């Protein structure tokens, strides 16, 4: 095993690339959810964007046009969702799922003629000598334009929601559509615009996968990225800057596990024992500080956990086994679940910052 082959600067630079599709999609979904709509169809919009962007870029030879096409494709898909949920008052969960299922099928259909082709390459933005700074240059100044665009978009969404009047109206609609309606704001229009923005962002994220990250078209290539984007919105407690943190964290995990796979890293079995010890201790501490009467059963359980961990560590001391690729590939999903659990358990913190009208149907009944 040769972990030293992993260069930290390259790692960081590549995690930014790995994170960008999810960052874009999550940012779009954040705006959608801030307006009080839960669109579970991110995966479907992303894959549609991936195939649209790919098809346009291959046909025209222009990656830029490809991204425009992807944004349009994603937005168009999202409008199906928008019209169904806003005008036909269909269930948002079911409609979002339908969008994902439909998107996966439709994209495969569109992508038929584009298998085995290579998209036109996307160059780096030229920062001149800045790019040659050791480490920093690799991390900050050797990316394609979409990476910088996605970062700019984070700032733009943050400023829009915090300072602009339209942002205020968007948040108001997401907090209480009845009150917003009573004040004369067009709830449905605001939401449709938010949904279209979310669709366009998801489309861009998908196209980033098919045009830059991979770059190739394969069926189902988003592989759950849309769902992870949804999870990151929860992780970020609906705050744009935290979307950035969440997406880059996730990107980091992805890149790290890929590097470990490539390096054929070995896994010390004793680590499992230490994890058990850690879990037992953490749970005991949580019990201690929660202020409630600790239950005997749980303390016994913790003691057993710690004992088992110590015993196990001793038992397999020094044993190394190769990481199985499948288990490394699982890790991003498992860690996403873990993060979701931590975020939602903090005494309803996630629930507190969620837009109050999220997922509720609106029908102007006046």
């Amino acid at each position, binding site marked *: 095993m040769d972990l030293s082959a992993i260069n930290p600067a390259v790692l960081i630079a590549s995690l930014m690339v790995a994170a960008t599709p999810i960052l874009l999609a999550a940012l779009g979904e954040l705006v959608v959810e801030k307006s009080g709509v839960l669109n579970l169809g991110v995966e479907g919009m992303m894959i549609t964007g991936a195939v649209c962007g790919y098809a346009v870029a291959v046909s025209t030879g222009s990656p830029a046009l490809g991204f425009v096409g992807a944004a349009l494709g994603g937005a168009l898909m999202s409008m199906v969702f928008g019209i169904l949920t806003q005008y036909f008052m269909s269930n948002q969960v079911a409609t979002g799922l339908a969008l994902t299922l439909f998107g996966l099928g439709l994209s495969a259909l569109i992508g038929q003629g584009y298998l085995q082709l290579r998209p036109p390459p996307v160059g780096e933005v030229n920062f001149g000598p800045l790019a040659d700074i050791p480490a920093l240059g690799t991390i900050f100044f050797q990316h394609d334009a979409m990476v910088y665009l996605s970062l700019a978009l984070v700032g733009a969404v943050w400023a829009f929601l915090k300072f602009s009047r339209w942002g205020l109206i968007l948040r108001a609609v997401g907090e209480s559509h009845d009150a*917003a309606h*009573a*004040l004369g704001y067009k709830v449905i229009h605001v939401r449709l615009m938010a949904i279209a923005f979310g669709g366009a962002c998801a489309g861009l994220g998908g196209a980033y996968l098919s045009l830059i990250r991979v770059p190739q078209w394969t069926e189902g290539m988003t592989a759950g990225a849309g769902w992870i984007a949804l999870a990151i919105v929860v992780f970020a407690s609906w705050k744009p800057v935290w979307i950035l943190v969440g997406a880059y964290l996730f990107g980091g995990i992805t890149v790290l596990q890929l590097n470990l796979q490539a390096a054929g890293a070995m896994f010390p079995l004793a680590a499992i024992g230490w994890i058990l010890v850690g879990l037992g201790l953490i749970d005991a501490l949580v019990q201690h500080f929660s202020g409630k009467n600790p239950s005997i059963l749980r303390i016994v359980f913790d003691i057993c956990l710690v004992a088992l961990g110590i015993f196990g560590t001793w038992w397999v001391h020094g044993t190394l086994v190769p990481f199985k690729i499948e288990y490394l590939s699982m890790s991003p999903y498992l860690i996403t679940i873990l993060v979701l659990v931590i975020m939602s358990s903090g005494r309803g913190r996630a629930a*507190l910052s969620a*837009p*109050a009208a999220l997922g509720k149907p609106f029908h102007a009944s*006046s």
Partner: protein
Amino acid sequence: MNEVLLSVEGLTKAYPGVVANDAVSFQIAPGEVHALLGENGAGKSTLVKMIYGLVRPDAGRMTFGGAAFEPTTPHAARAAGVAMVFQHFSLFEALNVAENVALGMESPPPQRQLARRIRQVSETYGLPLDPDRLVGDLSAGERQRVEIIRCLLQDPKLLIMDEPTSVLTPQEVGILFETLRKLQAEGTAILYISHKLEEIKTLCDGATILRLGKVVGECNPREESARSMAEMMVGQELHTPSREAKEPGEVVLDLAALSVASSNPFGTSLRNVHLEVRSGEILGVGGVAGNGQDEMLAALSGETSAPPDAIKLCGQDIGHLGPNARRRLGLLAAPEERLGHAAAPDMSLTENALLTGAIREQLTGGGFLHWPKARDFAGRIIEAFDVRTPGPENAARSLSGGNLQKFVIGREILQRPACLVVNQPTWGVDASAAAAIRQALMDLAAEGAAVVVISQDLDELMEISDRFAALNEGRLSAPRPAQGLTVEEIGMMLGGAHDMEVAHVEA
């Protein structure tokens, strides 16, 4: 009064199955406080929504300041100089005061400047308010101030107020009236919607009385008696509930130091509530909206749990028990929200009868449902409480508010509770159904049950309660005999000054 600010002529609006407004006409002069008087469902809300541009009339016309006035959106109405203070639904709990105010303005100044103006206006009119606080943390009275200031910042020519005092203590009502008089003196016309006659007598210069969508009279409230206006408003002889005073019996419900955290982040937690309710008595619990009424009902119904000994029923600890275990012991409840809490809107009345009646009426056996028995139980409720519906297979949401409320209350009463807790039993219910519900509650007490009525309608509580207590920020005042309480004393209790002079009442 030759000058006319707003003139409404022949305004008509029909909804499927009901004509909400039928050729309504009236006029308001600048600087006039004009009352729109009527029962629930008389069409007041629809009328003002048309003036405010939220609803478009089917027929009729309006003029405002001499020009034709056809607002298609609230923006248009606001641009013309109409502002409205809503009864419900126009504030955003997770946004701060300044943001809420900005949302109600056409072209708000930057936040910092707006905050300064909010402070300034709130001081001028005696309505102190901090622009940086979250609305979710404000009391009902403070929230109304946000609404009022939002309107005042736009220098309206006409201010519409929809039932503004229903969420205020008597003291807060006094402050509001001073503000309104100040505005009136500055030449602002006020359209004041209410069904409280005394308020209208003290405040208003003119009144238009609505009944079932039609104008049934106009008057000068200062010259009319409350009784004559009430007769115009109701249009029929009211059956006033009557009951014989009875010696209270054993203690049935006993709350000792009950503290329950609210499940809603913006809710009010109950703090150290003490209470005893005896067999055969009705305890009225007053209080301004949002002072812990919902939480109290949830704590008693078993939807939220408490330490076992904080709640006792006939001497037995029940604080830890869930709703069904409490029902088995005889503690029943009817929450405020009919659709979605007391009843499931899309389910049939039979299913809704099953919702709380399964245990005491033995509508299940071994987990399996006895549909015929459930249908029979629903039928009995419908018959005994005169619920107007084609039959028990109809969905709950197809019933009118009054009929559904009769069904909900009747469902609990027919189960012969040892103790019944109701929240807002006549909210949004027409007068005759309200009278029937109050009578049923009094009959239940007369038969020996202990009854707790939580309500924001003080008139109702004074009419049916034996003893009265008030909720303020989750604390309950010591109950006092209802007879002989003065408005000032009630106001003090509602405002939180509980223990001031118990001695003087004993005397």
